[in-house]
């Protein structure tokens, strides 16, 4: 049977996920962490890692070019991909929040929300009974209220430092976020034993 392909996000989640896999007795080479390669083969474990943008991980997994992936719940909510969400890895904890300039109200006419998560933001405000206009940004979301692009932002908050340094405050918490182990539905059946082994070993670590 062919190797398992795991899609991993670059950055902070990657480091924590690698640590988790090492704890689960996966023998990953030490130079693994600083490699700039996008595809890393680990033949001794019959694993292959592909390094992707966090937002793209579920896409690779849904299309089946990766059997498994590690993705933040924020991305899962935004993308709504048809994949199994098998485990909460309990790493990279943070939350999605609504933030803005202190002591301000949203515009009555056309409240605008800037965010990297247009789907999450629009369904959140709809559930609150508010009709808002969404402006999609790809980064540095905190800029939007500062220069008058939007009344509020919806973004990931981990320590709250970025908000504070830019003079913004949190208004509401939307949902808590951790990283999840996701699996392609076909791989879940075609490579069930290997995947089950990985799940069992990871479950033992995260408890």
């Amino acid at each position: 049977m062919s190797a398992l392909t795991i899609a991993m996000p670059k950055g902070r989640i990657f480091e924590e996920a690698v640590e988790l896999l090492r704890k689960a007795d996966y023998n990953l080479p030490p130079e693994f962490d600083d490699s700039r390669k996008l595809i890393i083969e680990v033949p001794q474990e019959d694993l292959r890692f592909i390094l992707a943008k966090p937002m793209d991980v579920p896409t690779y997994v849904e299309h089946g070019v990766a059997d498994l992936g590690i993705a933040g719940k924020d991305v899962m909510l935004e993308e709504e991909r048809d994949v199994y969400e098998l485990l909460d890895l309990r790493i990279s904890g943070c939350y999605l929040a609504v933030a803005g300039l202190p002591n301000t109200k949203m515009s009555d006419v056309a409240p605008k929300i800037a965010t990297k998560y247009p789907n999450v933001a629009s369904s959140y405000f709809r559930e609150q009974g508010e009709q808002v206009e969404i402006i999609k940004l790809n980064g540095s979301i905190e800029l939007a209220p500062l220069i008058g692009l939007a009344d509020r932002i919806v973004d990931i908050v981990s320590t709250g430092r970025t908000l504070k340094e830019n003079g913004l405050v949190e208004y509401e918490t939307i949902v808590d976020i951790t990283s999840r182990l996701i699996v392609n539905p076909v791989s879940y059946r075609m490579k069930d034993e290997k995947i089950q082994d990985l799940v069992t070993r990871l479950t033992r670590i995260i408890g």
Partner: protein
Amino acid sequence: MTKLFMFEKPLGMRDTFPDLYEIKDQTKKKMEQAMKLWGYKFIETPSLEYYETVGEASAILDQQLFKLLDQQGHTLVLRPDMTAPIARIAASKLLKDEAPLRLAYSNSVFRAQQREGGRPAEFEQVGIECIGDDSVSADAEVIALMVSVLKEAGLENFKISIGHIGFVQELFTQIVGTEERADTLRRYLYEKNYVGYRRHVNELALSSIDKQRLFRFLQLRGSENVLGEAHSLLEGGKGLHALEQLKELWSILKDYEVEQYVKFDLSLVSHMSYYSGILFEVYGENVGFAIGNGGRYDKLLEKFGKNSGATGFGLRLDYVLEAMQVELTSTLQQCVLFSDERRKEAIRLAIELRSEGVNVVLQNWKGVGDVDEFTKGFSHVHFVVGQDPKGGETS
């Protein structure tokens, strides 16, 4: 709107070029032949159906339907699957007596366009419906036939997961009390969100034994022994009937000698309300999506006014081909290249070759610019040119 380039086609639509067409056609014929050998008869239904009837009865989500209006103002849909149209005719026309009906189809179906690639809006489905038979034998026949069809198509490495809607529903209702709460749990399964399922179970006001039952339910995947474990989750008679059906199914599948392709996965559910009993999905290598699915849908016939059992499967031809990883090769053709003087001779030669089953291109020399370039693609070229009636034939 930007101006369209002349080569463009609507989003999600695909052309099939000759080399692919050939393989697709051959594969489809093999699949159709297998179905005919099992006594299934082919039918065709219209591409357009009423939204209010077939559109609403169909298992396909509303936002995935192609809708249009006819001149009377009725909303029409491009058929999103074949099961609902067949249920419509079966219930209204064909199913007159108690005799089971075996029907087959191989047609294009349509799903709304999507931005992302890899999701064609029109694709071919090959499948069968066995209508008017409530027995587990019919469920087993459908699965065994699907195995046979896939093998005939040339696919060897595939797996079928089998679940049972009745079991899930009865186990859940028994543990959580109401249908509504059971539906919430089932939605987590349908969304494949096991993390959410576990979290939800933990928040329910249940005894820890009941919670364990719900957690262990997620592990019910594997071969026959799964049924024993499933049995231990039940209390009282509920859900027992479903398990007995699965047990019977397994033993029939063993008689068909197809059990190596089959695994139980009792967490398999569907968003469709009309699936009522045994249901299944089939997966192949190299394709990230299920290549086909099926199951028992007794409730669909009820919608068309007939109280009758029915089961069937549909396979996606594009995914089947993808799973086989076929290499596109041109089919072998011969060429008879002639000049005017020897036209009659050339025509006779072509007729003779064609009668032997050879695909022959008959081409006048005058119409070809670069002979070397033109003749490259043929397995054999007959030159019927020049004055000499005996001709110089080379390849």
